[in-house]
């Protein structure tokens, strides 16, 4: 048996163990979904670069590592440690998971107003079964994506956020996943569900951080339902440990006149895949996909957008920007699908990249699939280096080369930051990005 098959059968074993453990608590509808998903995963296994959707991202490192199911941590970080890892000031609520286990000690769910519920998915299954049955695992497609299937089969933690009709939650809700450096390679499959009912407004921040470096694999799926005329902002702030792997899927179901924004900030991890898949499934829906990836060393980050316009008069905007240092490799695949009935679609996509060295690499692939005839779709991609003339100009005004470069890089990312509506978050993301920059200053003149 080769490693790949061995690893796959170990997931099967994990699935069976979990099954017997959960038997008492879990409703039948979910068990059915899990079994089907496990079968699906066993059938297809991990994708290869032969798959068009994975052409530039080789996941062998994930597929060939025998990850164990994550164990309940012996020692959880202190609240101070947690606060140092993630800034959750000015939050409406904060739900924290450590190595895939809900931590009541670190979470703060007291301040929530009526009409907003934030719960661990395991608890929600007990307390709110009917609601979960309506939404959980109903959107992200287990057939198309093996990672989503694996998640559906194995997930054990995650946040459920439910905002009732007409309720405005002005401050963001934080969902934090902390990894403590365990000695063995472990995998965790969080599953989040965010449902914003009609006319409500909410911002949810998903953060991935680690106490120290270790090899771990996070395979997260988040399903978002933006009800009619609801306003939803989702932030994904990925700051995983250098040796870790993260595959995340954000699937958004948008109803009529809903207004959704996704902000993906990818900073950490060794191999990261960020799938964002909104379906604009109601007339007048708007979707903004804003992304920023800052990579160095031999990091690999793959942003995979799939924007589906299913109904007329919807607008989507994709703005992804990346900065690649050293030998890092980024991928951007942006696919816009306009269904036959989605007339008057207005879809825009832009992917801009800054390569700081000759060895950094970007593969950018826009794709338009249009079945309606009255639509407006634009796409643009740029790949460039820091403008040597601009650096020279700034130096001639007295800036050091490092400052000049940082200033230009900062100007490049500024646009992405300005799209974030939550000011407290914008400032903390800005600080995180700035912290990544000084390396840029040491760069030698690599043009020739």
């Amino acid at each position, binding site marked *: 048996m080769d490693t790949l098959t061995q690893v796959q059968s170990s997931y099967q074993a994990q699935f069976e163990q979990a099954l017997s453990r959960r038997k008492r608590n879990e409703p039948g509808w979910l068990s059915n979904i899990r079994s089907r998903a496990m079968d699906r995963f066993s059938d297809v296994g991990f994708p290869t670069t032969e798959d068009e959707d994975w052409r530039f991202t080789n996941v062998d490192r994930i597929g060939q590592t025998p990850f164990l199911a994550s164990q309940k941590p012996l020692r959880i970080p202190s609240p101070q440690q947690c606060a140092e890892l993630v800034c959750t000031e000015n939050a409406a609520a904060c739900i924290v998971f450590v190595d895939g286990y809900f931590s009541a000690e670190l979470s703060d769910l007291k301040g929530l107003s009526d009409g907003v519920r934030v719960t661990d998915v395991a608890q929600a299954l007990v307390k709110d079964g009917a609601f979960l049955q309506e939404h959980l695992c109903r959107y992200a497609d287990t057939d198309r994506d093996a990672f989503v299937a694996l998640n559906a089969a194995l997930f054990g933690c995650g946040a459920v956020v439910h905002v009732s009709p*007409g309720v405005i939650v002005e401050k963001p809700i934080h969902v934090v996943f902390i990894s403590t450096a365990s000695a063995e390679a472990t995998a965790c499959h969080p599953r989040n569900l965010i449902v914003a009912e009609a006319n409500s407004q909410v911002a949810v921040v998903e953060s991935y951080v680690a106490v120290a470096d270790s090899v771990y694999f996070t395979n997260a799926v988040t399903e978002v339902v933006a009800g009619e*005329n609801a306003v939803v902002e989702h932030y994904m702030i990925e700051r995983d440990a250098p040796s870790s792997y993260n595959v995340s899927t954000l699937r958004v179901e948008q109803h*009529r006149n809903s207004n959704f924004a996704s902000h993906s900030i990818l900073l950490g991890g060794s191999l990261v895949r960020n799938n964002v898949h909104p379906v604009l499934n109601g007339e*007048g*829906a708007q979707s903004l996909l804003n992304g920023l990836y800052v990579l160095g060393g031999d990091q690999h980050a793959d942003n995979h957008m799939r924007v589906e316009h299913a109904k007329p008069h919807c607008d989507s905007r994709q703005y992804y920007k990346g900065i690649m240092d050293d030998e890092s490799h980024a991928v951007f695949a942006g696919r816009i699908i306009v269904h036959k009935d989605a007339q008057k679609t207005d879809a*825009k996509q832009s992917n801009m990249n800054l390569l700081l060295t000759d060895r950094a690499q970007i593969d950018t692939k826009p794709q338009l699939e249009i079945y309606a005839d009255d639509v407006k779709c634009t796409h643009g991609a740029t790949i460039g280096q820091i403008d040597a003339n601009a650096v020279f100009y700034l130096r001639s005004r007295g800036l050091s080369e490092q400052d000049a470069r940082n200033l230009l890089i900062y100007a490049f990312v500024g646009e992405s930051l300005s799209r974030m509506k939550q000011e407290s978050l914008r400032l903390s993301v800005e600080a995180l990005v700035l912290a990544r920059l000084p390396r840029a200053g040491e760069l030698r003149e690599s043009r020739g």
Partner: protein
Amino acid sequence: MLEIRDLHAEIEGHEILKGVNLTVRAGEVHSIMGPNGSGKSTLAQVLAGHSAFTVTKGEVLYEGEDLLALPPEERAQKGVFLAFQYPVELPGVGTNYFLRTALNSIRKARGLEDIDAVDFLKLVREKAKFVDLDERLLNRAVNEGFSGGEKKRNEIFQMAVLEPKLAILDETDSGLDIDALRIVSDGVNKLRSPERAVVVVTHYQRLLNYIVPDFVHVLVDGRIVKSGGKELALELESKGYGWIAPANARTNNRPAVASAH
């Protein structure tokens, strides 16, 4: 100011409006509510003169004149303004240039001289502040690359510049977050005056917390089935359209569990 009598209209053979009656006097704010597909937007488009709809019966008098006999630009020149549900992009056509052409067309129809370029600039700057619209947007093409919220604000901005007598807002609140909703409502409220009438077409009661109407009408299946004061909107919000609508009409609004305001 506006007198709609037994208005019937259809598109591609489907009857959408099935006998609408409505009287709007100067200084009044009317809200037209109703479930999706009830004909609210159709009514707004028919009043503005969209050619896709055919009026099969009834009449509309605007300041005593047969409104339906006029082409859309003449309606605009006489002071009818529609804030579009889906504002249209005009690539390459600068917002300032577009608005000046519009303003001058309207002035010309009223026998006035073209507005002086400097005065125009002063006017648009002042009105842009009014709706918190980034002035830089004025140099860009009309609605091109604007966000959903910017497009809606641009409609209110244009309304502020053109100063219509009868303003019809077609779902101007859809998809707006709470801050943008406040800005748009403020813009509309500043325009309220005894000489002006506003018809607010909306699906959501929320807007009416900010633009308080004198009258609320419920449009279901092409007819106004109930009219009342602003309290009718609140009643709709809590009970949905179901209690009012005929049995066959679609009801999409679930009752709210809680409301922030």
